[in-house]
């Protein structure tokens, strides 16, 4: 592997450092700055004071209580019997689940379709597996003037353009719903278009659903694996970190038919071997609680999106007042905003070949003390220029952080 490896995310490391250097209010990084729910912290405390087994090796492919509840929980959602020992793999974060999926399923010369904008790790992972990425972009459809705030739901794929990307070398397509950075929540009809192409061309689908519980405005998360003909060819990936607001626990999972899972398991066995026991035990207890409370107001999966709904609204209005044009996300952790109308002269700031959003992010961090991320990093090199007028904000932050951001934006709008 070593020759193909590129040190990646140098842009991320640079922006994170810049934010730290300027002590900026950080809406750049995608993790909560509030605590995980009490019940999950309690579950970990209980696990830690359990018998000696909690601190020793557990089952390689996933701690039995965890794989059992994941199979039961998601089986109920997709309407099928999921075998906890055959169909489920617990991984070191959704990140490692993605790694296992690509290494297990992508061969030298395979093509993999990535829907832009995409979480940036997909591309290097496909390339590491010897695959070639093919890109298709979500694009904002034309909106009627005055028809309200743009929504992530306006960003769609052209079915013809999508179909044109499939050929005999296509091995897989990667989708992320709810989407990072856009916040799009794919509707059933949109997933059906993708599913039809997958079935027709015998292509696999890797579905990154880490933000599955975070949907707003009544939008529903739909699992592509539940569509006809898709269970056998979809690897669905989830994250305990995003589910329970505990990103530092680094636990995730991959679920698919045994036919695919037996290969992911081999990669897992040869790379990480197994995940920590105590955190798996705690996540199992978290899911058991949520299984009983599912759909009720006490469920964390209802409470968290309700809380974030407000934060999202508030941030959108502050951004609007400062001259940015936010795109209201239907789901997820993030909101993107169009910076084209911002009244700031950045011509002396930009380095020659730097995309506009990079320059803006640096300026906003240094001059205003507010850190964000440029959206063009979520695009392939060939499409970066076309989409360099957006920046991404994370609103999964406690009120004091969002209030500080609001102050900055309000003061800035007053100077304009």
């Amino acid at each position, binding site marked *: *592997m*070593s*020759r193909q*490896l590129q*040190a*990646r*995310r140098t842009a991320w490391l640079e922006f994170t450092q810049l934010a730290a250097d300027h002590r900026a209010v950080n809406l750049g990084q995608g*993790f*909560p*700055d509030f*605590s995980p729910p009490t019940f999950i*912290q309690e579950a*970990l*405390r209980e696990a*830690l*004071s359990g018998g*000696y*087994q*909690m*601190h*020793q*090796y*557990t089952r*390689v492919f996933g701690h039995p209580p965890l794989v059992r509840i994941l199979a039961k929980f998601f089986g109920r959602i997709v309407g099928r019997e999921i075998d906890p020992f055959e169909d489920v793999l617990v991984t*070191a*974060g959704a*990140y*490692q689940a993605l*790694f296992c999926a690509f*290494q*297990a*399923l992508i*061969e030298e010369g395979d093509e993999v379709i990535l829907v832009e904008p995409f979480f940036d*790790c997909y591309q*290097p*992972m496909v390339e*590491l*597996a010897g695959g070639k990425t093919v890109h298709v972009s979500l694009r904002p459809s034309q909106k009627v003037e005055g028809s309200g705030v743009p929504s992530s739901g306006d960003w769609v794929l052209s079915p013809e353009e999508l179909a044109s990307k499939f050929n005999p070398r296509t091995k897989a397509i990667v989708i992320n719903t709810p989407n990072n950075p856009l916040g799009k929540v794919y509707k059933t009809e949109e997933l059906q278009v993708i599913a039809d192409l997958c079935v027709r061309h*015998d292509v*696999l689908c890797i579905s990154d659903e880490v933000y599955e519980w975070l949907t707003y405005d009544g939008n529903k998360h739909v699992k592509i694996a539940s569509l006809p003909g898709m269970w056998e*060819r979809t690897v669905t990936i989830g994250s305990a*970190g995003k589910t329970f*607001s*505990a990103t*530092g*626990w*680094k636990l995730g999972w991959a679920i698919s038919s045994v036919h695919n899972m*037996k*290969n992911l398991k*081999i990669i897992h*066995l*040869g*790379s*990480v*071997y*197994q995940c*920590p*026991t*105590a*955190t798996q035990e705690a996540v199992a207890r978290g899911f058991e609680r949520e299984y009983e409370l599912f759909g009720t107001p006490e469920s964390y999966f209802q409470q968290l999106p309700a809380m974030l709904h407000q934060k999202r609204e508030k941030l959108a209005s502050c951004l609007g007042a400062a001259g940015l044009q936010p795109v209201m996300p239907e789901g997820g952790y993030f909101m993107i905003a169009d910076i084209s109308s911002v009244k700031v002269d950045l011509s002396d700031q930009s380095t020659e070949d730097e995309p506009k959003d990079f320059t803006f992010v640096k300026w906003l961090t240094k001059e205003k003390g507010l850190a964000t991320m440029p959206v063009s990093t979520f695009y392939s090199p060939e499409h970066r220029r076309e989409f360099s007028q957006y920046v991404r904000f994370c609103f999964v932050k406690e009120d004091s952080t969002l209030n500080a951001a609001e102050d900055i934006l309000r003061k800035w709008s007053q100077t304009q």
Partner: protein
Amino acid sequence: MNVARRVLSLMHLCFVLQNIMTSRHTHTKRIEGLDKNVWVAFTSLAADPSVVNLGQGFPDIPPPSYVKEALAQAASVDKMNQYTRGFGHPSLVKALSQVYGKVYERQIDPLKEILVTVGGYGSLFSTMQGLVEDGDEVIIIEPFFDCYVPMVRMAGAKPVLIPLRLKSGKKTVTSADWFLDPDELSSKFSSKTKAIIINTPTILSGRDELQMIADLCIKHDTLCFTTLPGMWDRTITISSAGKTFSVTGWKLGWSIGPEHLMRHLQTVMQNTIYTCPTPLQEAVAQGLQHNFELMGQPECYFSSLAEELEGKRDRMAAFLQEAGMPPVIPEGGYFMLVDVTPLNQDLSHMVQDEAYDYKFVKWMIKEKKLAAIPVTAFVGEESKKQFEKYIRLCFIKQDSTLDAAEAILKNWRKI
């Protein structure tokens, strides 16, 4: 063609297409032949609560309480439940640089010369993927921890094996009686040799042998995955919190080495796992800090654990000898190899095509309710005959487990 036949032929066509479709999605070449694993095979057999488990290497004694408390405390801090630095949590890499700086007597840069991984296993993987290329050769000493060979192969390289050999004519055997033949070792180095993997403590611990390996590495410009004097620039040292603090279920490990090698491991990390769990790293940092201050004193866990295990080692060796099974007394580590030849156990009724030790262990689990691990899991095909009368027993177990094992062995001949 009438309608019925047309429909039938269409159905037949669909059925054939279905077969063609699903057969396209089989495993990738990189995992060819890697599906067999000794742990997956034996852990479920040993999981039966009526079986005394001396197989897989984990303690059934509790870890030090301050380590468990450190984890509970860390998890109660908001920040500690969110992502930390990718290459290693700052307080942990700082503690590691202090502890290992003292051990190696050199300054170790916590940010550039250390990587925290998911267990020692994750470090082995990052090292292999970061430094070993398609077509390289990697020398592995038998018996070896079983993952080395599949990891080398997954990196597209060729494992080159060399067995440890037993000095003849010894009555009581210790791990020091196993040696590497210098000429044989030298013959394994070629222009394609990228690295040699050493695992110590294990059977191989003698200083002279390590120096011999060092000399060959320098001569052939080979990397070494361990540490020896004068070897810093070509060595990656791998270790484990799980084994250091008796918390194998925490799955945290680390690699330490020079920046020009470590940056490749860090790149692998960025592209595979990205970062390790935060609260676990914070707790290990505290454990290391605590023991760093005690280093050299008897209260230091690194010394007290070794002392406790020496007692258990001696006890197990004694009851094995009494049962007529000569053990190989280890100079270090968690395990003891035992030669089962004197038992003359007839296993001809077991018809599977497996090495003797695999059959013996399966038979022993079933008939004697005692679990071990067969040693041929740790050697290549050509060395199987040399090692197939050995089984591996783990002695980092509480007294009641060792009592139960001793009772089984005392009653061995009676059944």
